[in-house]
């Protein structure tokens, strides 16, 4: 009953999204205020319908209604209640519904928070979001119905949730990631609406900026949680695999990062307009490419859902329509847009332009590396795979100039900057970075020219330059104490995000250089030395969990004779899904992780174990968190809200 109600709610949502796509758009061409005013209630009603559908699905999972195919295949009655809830978005069908819900949520938020926007623009933005909603709700409804029943025959017990997804990180990872993915739909809708109206200016950029930032915030957090989940749950200590699906989320992130920087130029200087619009289109298009790659099954990856050619084709057509349609509109409208602002070669505009070039090159590399095997195979040249070393190498080359520019960027003024006033503070930062990097290397007793030195140098350069820049700005605004209070939130947000990047770079470089890893054969009582730590296997015994069995190993770790910690690693066998999971034991500190995974049982009462010491691996996620916090801080900047109102009053006449 409830399930049918969910189905009905989703059908209503589809009808509402079609109305949302058509009514305000028609109204915008007839200049009809009542029709334009319809957009907001329609958007909110659509969200409520989607929410009801999702709640109905969660109800089906909680009540273990195995007549629903989706529930039978992805849940079981022995699953803990919180995983029953997350199982509702663990499958292809359920995750599509979550995707739709997020999209409807963003649409409703735009409807609620765009009071300041001119009615015409409001109507068009919501209509475009309605169109995108309609496309995805139709997909969920007709191609991957999460409520499909298998009556009259149904199983008495479900097939259980994939054990990989039975993890805390998995509760948070998909919703945040999807919030990010579909969040770029808002920037996309703003861009298309502006293309229809044919007007771009600083006011427009200021309206888009918070939305693009919010989407970027969620995408950053989602990717970071995904990496953290992979590290903890895949069980072998990797934090980024250059897996096609990871790449699918990384591409819109890179384009989105370029977008938020380009938007800054468009807002402050009224230039880079066509570029910004193109990036807004690209960020969303790449999100759709990601959705297509994950759901069509053209690429093989740990994440892929079951393949279904029909679904892939639908998404491909949808993708081509969105990209083709928006590029057509872009081509027909954008030639009229001219940027007036002038700027010199050494100016913030140019540096942000450089930032964009590097980010898009990175995006292109990821795109090429992800899709090359696909093309290679389709052209009949045989199956190939592109290894992580390709991406590692390319990103190493790219990060060096990128980080150097990043340290410089915030110091440089708009329009034009004289080199001489910057020389002495920057030289000071550079020397300090060198001292810091060498100092850290010296305490680790390994001063040599390697990746770690490069990472420390670049990280220290970016981080300290960001801090020094804040101090210098504060000094310009009077005393340091007064000045720090006067700087606005978005400036601190930028600084924090840049420091986050520095922390991330240091974490990646240190982990990659100094990780020590060894696969060993151990019997109870055996000891192994690694990176100064002594690991002793004390015992291995059978496990008996709610829906799994397997073995557990206990280890004691000591360093220089002092007891450090006790580790508990498991090898689980999930009975219903007949899947084996490696639950690694992790002892985390800011400076290093101890990571032990239990491998297979060997003849002679022995076990294979992988023991790793991973220095600074926490810094990778810490950096991601700092970037997220930076975006949040920028978002809280009160100037968006205040100026938005002021700007809208004057812009209202231009748009009407």
């Amino acid at each position, binding site marked *: 009953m409830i399930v049918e109600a969910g189905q009905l709610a989703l059908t209503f949502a589809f009808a509402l999204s079609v109305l949302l796509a058509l009514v305000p758009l028609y109204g915008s061409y007839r200049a009809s205020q009542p029709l334009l005013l319809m957009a907001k209630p329609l958007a909110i009603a659509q969200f409520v319908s989607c929410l009801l559908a999702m709640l109905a699905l969660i109800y089906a999972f909680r009540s273990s209604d195995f007549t629903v195919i989706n529930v039978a295949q992805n849940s079981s009655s022995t699953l803990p209640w919180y995983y029953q809830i997350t199982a509702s978005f663990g499958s292809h069908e359920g995750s599509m519904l979550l995707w739709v819900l997020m999209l409807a949520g963003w649409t409703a938020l735009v409807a609620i928070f765009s009071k300041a926007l001119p009615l015409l623009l409001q109507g068009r933005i919501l209509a475009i979001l309605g169109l995108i909603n309609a496309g995805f709700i139709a997909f969920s409804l007709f191609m991957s119905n999460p409520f499909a029943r298998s009556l009259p025959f149904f199983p008495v017990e479900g097939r259980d949730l994939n054990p990989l997804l039975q993890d805390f990180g998995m509760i948070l990872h998909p919703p945040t990631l999807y919030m990010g993915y579909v969040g770029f739909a808002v920037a996309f809708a703003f861009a298309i609406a502006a293309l229809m109206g044919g007007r771009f200016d600083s006011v427009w950029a200021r309206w888009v900026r918070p939305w693009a930032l919010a989407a970027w915030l969620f995408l950053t957090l989602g990717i970071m949680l995904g990496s953290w989940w992979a590290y903890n749950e895949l069980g072998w200590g990797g934090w980024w695999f250059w897996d096609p699906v990871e790449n699918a989320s990384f591409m819109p992130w890179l384009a989105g990062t370029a977008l938020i920087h380009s938007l800054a130029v468009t807002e402050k200087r009224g230039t880079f307009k066509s570029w910004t619009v193109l990036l807004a289109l690209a960020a969303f298009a790449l999100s759709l490419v990601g959705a297509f790659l994950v759901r069509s099954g053209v690429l093989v990856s*740990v994440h892929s859902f079951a393949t279904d050619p029909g679904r892939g084709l639908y998404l491909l057509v949808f993708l081509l329509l969105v990209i083709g349609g928006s590029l057509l509109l872009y081509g027909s409208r954008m030639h009229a847009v001219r940027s007036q602002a002038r700027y010199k070669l050494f100016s913030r505009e140019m540096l942000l332009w450089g930032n964009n070039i590097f980010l898009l090159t990175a995006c*292109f*590399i990821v795109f090429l*590396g992800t899709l090359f095997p696909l093309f290679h195979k389709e052209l009949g040249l045989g199956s190939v795979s*592109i290894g992580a070393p390709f991406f590692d190498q390319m990103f190493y*080359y790219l990060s060096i100039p990128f980080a150097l520019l990043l340290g410089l960027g915030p110091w440089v003024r708009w329009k034009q900057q004289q080199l001489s006033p910057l020389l002495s503070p920057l030289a000071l930062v550079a020397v300090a970075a060198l001292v810091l990097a060498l100092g850290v290397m010296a305490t680790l007793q390994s001063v040599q020219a390697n990746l770690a030195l490069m990472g420390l140098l670049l990280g220290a350069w970016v981080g300290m330059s960001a801090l020094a820049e804040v101090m210098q700005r504060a000094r310009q605004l009077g005393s340091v104490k007064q000045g720090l209070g006067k700087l606005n939130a978005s400036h601190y947000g930028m600084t924090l995000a840049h420091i986050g990047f520095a922390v991330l770079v240091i974490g990646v470089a240190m982990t990659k250089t100094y990780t020590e890893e060894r*696969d060993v*054969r151990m019997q109870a009582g055996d000891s192994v030395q690694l990176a100064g730590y002594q690991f002793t296997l004390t015992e291995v015994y059978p496990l008996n969990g709610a829906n799994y069995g397997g073995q557990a190993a206990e280890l004691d770790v000591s360093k220089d004779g002092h007891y450090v910690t006790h580790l508990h690693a498991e090898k689980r066998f999930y009975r219903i899904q007949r899947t*084996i999971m490696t639950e690694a034991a992790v002892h985390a500190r800011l400076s290093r992780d101890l990571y032990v995974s239990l491998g*297979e049982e060997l003849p002679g009462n022995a076990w294979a174990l992988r023991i790793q010491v991973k220095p600074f691996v926490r810094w990778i996620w810490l950096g991601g968190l700092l970037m997220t916090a930076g975006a949040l801080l920028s978002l809280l900047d009160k100037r968006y809200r205040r100026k938005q109102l002021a700007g809208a009053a004057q812009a209202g006449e231009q748009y009407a």
Partner: protein
Amino acid sequence: MLSRRQKRLSAVVLVLTLLGGAVAAMLYALQQNIDLFYTPSQLVEGLGKDKIKPVVGQRLRIGGMVVEGSVKRDPNSLKVSFDLIDTGPIVTVTYNGILPDLFREGQGIVAQGVLLDPVTIAASEVLAKHDEEYMPPEVAEALKGIRHVPPSQQQKADGGY
């Protein structure tokens, strides 16, 4: 002072140089990191129409079924060797490390490594995905005609894990 046109031109030249450099570096890196996929028969008989055989020392990927009873372990270390087969010849894979959770005799796996001699591969990585029903698509394709029995349909003679 540069005129507007000159500035544009220099910007375009800069972009093209960067792009060119990036593409060149990328192609070079790509060339070094492409691993061709072989099945045991392709490894022995050659790949494609021209029957190109890999040279000793080449990096490659190989996928096939683990031959029943071929897994040999070193009693004192993690060294292991096993045979792979698809439709014809058998090749040997040697590996030093932990085999993936789902490594089983009679199941499809993919190994990444270096060719030691024409029928032996020293693997640096052995992959078997996190699903017992999983069959690497390349292997599935190469094994057309041979029935792959998913473990869930097999008699549970071994009594589970």
